[in-house]
């Protein structure tokens, strides 16, 4: 048994005094394909940022490849939420993907040959090599998303973290993207944030429900009733859904989820 890629123990995180994550325990094994699902504000992105070391836990510990997240960073590829990138920024596709090669150490002067080769390889993997000289602004939404995945891959990571990678895509582009991720998963551990459990469950190996607390489900456990419960009625999910350690419960009735 190799050491887990991610080991989170007793983690809590508070922002401005309010508890966002509470007593989270989570282990992710090598070559797992995990999706964080849950309502908005449930702490999915926060958990991702804690794994990246962009945030520090209020209590508990996060270990990535057995080290602290800031030390493990060179082995992590990250794709932030698409919305924070200016789509009209004057840069070519290669320029954008090359940003995956910046590091803690030397960034002075031009990129080296090894950097360019890693970038071309990443572009080939996402099938954008032919577009490498195009302005980033001219890409379609799906191509832009793939370019940002290539930027994450350019770092030659062992762990890939993606925050809402399908947020701006239509269903067909979404299928394509998951196909790509499935291929990458043959050698990389992947964690992605999504609020679409039903669609994601066809591709991922386990689903982590994040709403202040965390519950792990292997995908084999996901049943139609569970999807129905979490996503069938969105309003119910937003207000009443609970992710409790003893299984999923709905609101006032407190009835147990089918799979628990």
């Amino acid at each position: 048994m190799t050491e887990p890629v991610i080991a989170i123990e007793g983690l809590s995180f508070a922002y401005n005094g309010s508890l966002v994550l509470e007593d989270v325990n989570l282990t992710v094994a090598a070559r797992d394909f995990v999706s964080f699902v849950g309502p908005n504000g449930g702490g999915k992105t926060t958990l991702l940022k804690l794994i990246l070391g962009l945030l520090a836990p209020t209590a508990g510990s996060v270990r990535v490849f057995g080290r602290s997240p800031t030390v493990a960073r060179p082995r992590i590829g990250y794709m932030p939420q698409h919305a924070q990138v200016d789509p009209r920024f004057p840069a070519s596709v290669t320029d954008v993907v090359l940003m995956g090669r910046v590091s803690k150490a030397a960034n002075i002067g031009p990129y080296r040959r090894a950097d360019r080769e890693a970038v071309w390889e990443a572009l080939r993997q996402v099938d954008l090599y032919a577009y490498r000289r195009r302005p980033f602004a001219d890409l379609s939404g799906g191509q832009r998303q793939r370019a940002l995945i290539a930027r994450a891959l350019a770092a030659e990571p062992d762990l890939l973290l993606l925050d809402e990678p399908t947020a701006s895509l239509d269903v067909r582009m979404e299928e394509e993207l998951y196909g790509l991720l499935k291929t990458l998963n043959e050698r990389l551990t992947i964690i992605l944030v999504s609020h679409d459990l039903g669609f994601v469950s066809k591709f991922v190996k386990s689903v982590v429900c994040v709403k202040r607390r965390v519950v792990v489900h292997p995908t084999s456990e996901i049943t139609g009733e569970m999807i129905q419960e979490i996503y069938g009625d969105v309003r119910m999910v937003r207000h009443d859904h609970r992710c409790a350690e003893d299984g999923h419960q709905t609101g006032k009735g407190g009835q147990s989820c089918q799979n628990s």
Partner: protein
Amino acid sequence: MSEFLDALRQNAFMQYAVLAGVLASVACGVVGTYIVVRRITYIAGSISHCILGGIGAALYLREVHGWTFATPLRGAVIAALLAAFIIGLVTMRARQREDTVIGAVWAIGMAAGILFIFKTPGYQQDLMSYLFGNILMVTPEDLWLMAGLDVAVIAAGILFYNPLLALCFDEEFARARGMRVEGYYLFLLCLTALTVVLLVSVVGIILVIALLTLPVAVAGHLAKRLWQMMVLAAIFSIVFTVVGQAIAYSPGLPAGATIIVLAGAVYLVVAIGSRLPRRWPSSSGASPPRRGSLPCRRERPR
């Protein structure tokens, strides 16, 4: 125009003026581009207004206390760097109130400058030339300092092109890669401060933001990559400062204001012109769709 060329041939001060415009323009192209794509124009404005405080303090110390080394340009450099550090530290530490602090630094710097100049005998009438620029007052000594600043700013802007590009494009990603984002951000603000000092000698404190952003904005309509934007912005800036001075010469108009009106007019023409044909519907105009906050968007029958 020929009158301007004659004057340029005959008068050293005219040549200094044109040279000052060119020197400032090159730094403006490089650093102005970073400022525009990183969206810190407002910070650049605050730094530029603070410079009046430095100029005022230098004049006061020189006239009243006899500190001969306290030249206005040196005072400007110190005030600009100080403002950059204050704003940089505040925007990194307390994100919610950053616009308040930027505005406060802006006004306090100016107020201090006005008080110093008011208390310095014989300099009140110079206030206008600091505020709106007087490029004809540039001395050879100023030119050397400007050239030195220029070399430093451009070398830094080019040497650190990759990390600064990463910082401007996606700060959080750069941080996740382990880049020292805070350090580079402060560094960028210092470059901004030095560039603003260069530009103040050309167009004055109040008009600096325009010269820092308008050539870049025009270049933005043509450039596809950041370095192209820098080169084009520098060229536009040189054209604006030289042609602006030429236009201003015969009727005896203030050069700084003429330069800015010219730059503004060109920008308007380019901005309107690029809207009309709509050749790039995917890249022009449309902002990215809001996402993430709409729970009903993902409802799909299963």
